[in-house]
């Protein structure tokens, strides 16, 4: 069952990643792109977690935690950059 579900979910997630990707590309404003990138990071976490199930190994979870935490720090720094009037 899981062998069947995982690839489907994985494909959904990659499509989702593609959607965020498009938003990063089309913007239009800088915050839009940052939001999209943050979304992409979230999706990467989801993908990594799904891969954990698919491959049956839990070693990737720290990677998921890492990105969960660090994408936040990254987003904050970009947000602060925008707040300071940073241009694109």
């Amino acid at each position, binding site marked *: 069952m899981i062998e069947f579900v995982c690839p489907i979910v994985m494909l959904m997630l990659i499509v989702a990643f593609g959607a965020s990707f498009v938003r990063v590309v089309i913007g239009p404003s800088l915050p839009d792109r940052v939001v999209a990138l943050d979304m992409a990071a979230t999706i990467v976490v989801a993908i990594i977690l799904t891969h954990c199930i698919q*491959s*049956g*190994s839990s*070693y*990737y979870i720290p990677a998921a935690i890492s990105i969960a935490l660090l994408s936040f720090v990254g987003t904050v720094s970009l947000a602060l950059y925008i707040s300071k009037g940073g241009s694109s």
Partner: protein
Amino acid sequence: MEVLLAIVIGTLYTGGLYLMMRRNLIQLIIGLGLLSHGANLLIFTAGGLRQGGAPILAEGEKMFATVPADPLPQALILTAIVISFAVTAFALVLFLRTYQAVGTDDVDELKETDT
């Protein structure tokens, strides 16, 4: 699969090289970034792709049951990633200082030392 990844690597190198030939310092940095991605992926691909598990021995086991991914390229890439991060960080500061000292970020204008 490898052919596909080779194309990705080629694209990354192409993009990196192209950006390094642009006139902005920042594009130079980004170019270096793409180049380093390309190099890492290259090591990964050339080292042989195994869709096996991670090279981590499970708790309580003494031997790998199935052949996992090749750990050596991974270690090499880790080192390379870190080095490229360090160098990128320094280059960034260098470019920042250059911009402040010279007053331009146009690489084409930075030619005083060559003449």
